[in-house]
């Protein structure tokens, strides 16, 4: 496979590239069974994490992935950097370029910032979430998890995204990738949280009963992103939970039908799901976290820093 400089979204990946990243993640995951979980592949390279938004699992997942490839990892803490003094993104990148960073993992609340950075640095840029736009490594780890459960051919499987789809870059990227892999997809949310420009082939539902009639194999819960909701999209979190949350009552038919449950985290317990859902036997939430490291190792192994594009 020819190396690529950046990973910015799912759209720009070819089918062959998607297959390459997913299939290479399998031996990376097998490494985790060894006593020494580290390989020397990126020895001497530097991976810089540049998170303008708070993150726990994506940030630590990239840190672990880079460490297991023997790269040096530098966490650029935005809250204690000159960014709070008004330094622009490009000035920050110029500084990082002078430090000869090889990979930049960036998260930003504004869509398109990773693309801007990629055009201005020779380092490989990986989009770790930008605005409402994209979160490609989350989509790839979700696809990897689905293939672990259902096998490589996902073409007859159905996945339903439930929750705050409007503000979810995860839903955008994962929905897109699931469809690329042949899955049927649906969305369940209050009308105010369904994007107006959703793909026409996605089935839209407003209640659990009609969603169950659609016969999904996987329920993909999304976090209610209160921090992104500058106007109220529903009356209250309590009411949201009552109508759209995965409650104990709604878990029963999911259990009876043998459905799988996924969530990208972090979880708002008591909002999009209850504690019992977390311990549900077909919850893939922890598997998603473990797979995230393997898939991100696969991505870092594939990308190559180089000249400006």
């Amino acid at each position, binding site marked *: *496979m020819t*190396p690529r400089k950046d990973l910015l979204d799912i759209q720009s990946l070819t089918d062959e590239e998607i297959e390459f990243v997913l299939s*290479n993640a399998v*031996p990376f995951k097998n490494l985790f069974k060894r006593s020494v979980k580290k390989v020397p*592949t990126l020895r001497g390279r530097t991976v810089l994490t540049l998170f303008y938004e708070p993150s726990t699992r994506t940030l630590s997942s990239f840190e672990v992935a880079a460490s297991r490839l023997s790269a040096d990892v530098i966490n650029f803490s935005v809250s204690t950097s000159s960014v709070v003094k008004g330094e622009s993104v490009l000035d920050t990148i110029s500084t990082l370029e002078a430090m000869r960073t090889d990979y930049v993992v960036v998260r930003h609340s504004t869509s398109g910032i990773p693309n801007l950075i990629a055009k201005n640095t020779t380092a490989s840029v990986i989009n770790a979430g930008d605005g409402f736009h994209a979160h490609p490594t989350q989509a790839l780890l979700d696809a990897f998890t689905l293939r672990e459960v259902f096998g490589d051919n996902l073409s007859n499987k159905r996945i339903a995204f439930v929750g705050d789809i409007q503000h979810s870059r995860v839903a955008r990227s994962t929905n897109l990738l699931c469809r690329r892999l042949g899955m049927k997809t649906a969305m369940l949310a209050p009308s105010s949280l369904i994007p107006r420009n959703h793909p026409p082939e996605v089935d839209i539902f407003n209640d659990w009963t009609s969603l169950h009639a659609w016969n999904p194999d996987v329920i993909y819960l999304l976090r209610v992103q209160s921090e992104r909701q500058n106007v109220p999209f529903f009356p209250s979190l309590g009411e949201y939970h009552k109508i759209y949350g995965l409650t104990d009552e709604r878990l029963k038919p999911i259990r009876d039908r043998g459905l799988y449950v996924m969530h990208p985290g972090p979880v708002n317990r008591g909002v999009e799901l209850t504690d019992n859902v977390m311990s549900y036997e077909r919850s893939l939430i922890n598997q998603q976290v473990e797979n995230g490291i393997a898939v991100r190792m696969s991505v870092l*192994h*594939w990308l190559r820093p180089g000249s400006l594009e």
Partner: protein
Amino acid sequence: MPDPAPLFDHQAITQRIERLANLIRENHPDGNLALVGIHSRGVPLAERLYALLKPHFPDLELGRVDISLYRDDLGNLATIPKLIGSDIPFDLDDKNVILCDEVTYTGRTTRAAIEELLDYGRPAKVEIAAFIDRDGREFPIHAAYIGEHLDILPHQRVQVRFTEVDGEDAVYIQDHDIRRPS
């Protein structure tokens, strides 16, 4: 394109692998052995040696290593390798490990394989079994068991083909300007 006239055919290859197995038996009367093939053509070599040695060493183990993640030239590669993954399904600690490869040349592949082995455990001893050994070392690597040494020119290339991977047993040299082995 490979030369249509192979230097060794199936019979010659089988004889040399049997000789390798006999040498290993003589050197390891007490067993405690593991054969580890280096992906990709070291794997069929290890499997054939395993078939010959297993009746004599019931505790003989078999594994394989894919050294793609241990190469020192990844940044220079025009294409990124598809990973096969390593499989060492036994405890390496205190085993006498014999690394099997079809050709030992610069020594870089062997170095990478040894480095990977050490991430799996602490073998008592590591030796190398090479079907073909040729000049051109860049690292101080020594094969303990050699099927054949070929004294060929630096620009010439040895291609060992095994039925399991290539559909035929044969050894080719890319041009015929060689001193054939006695």
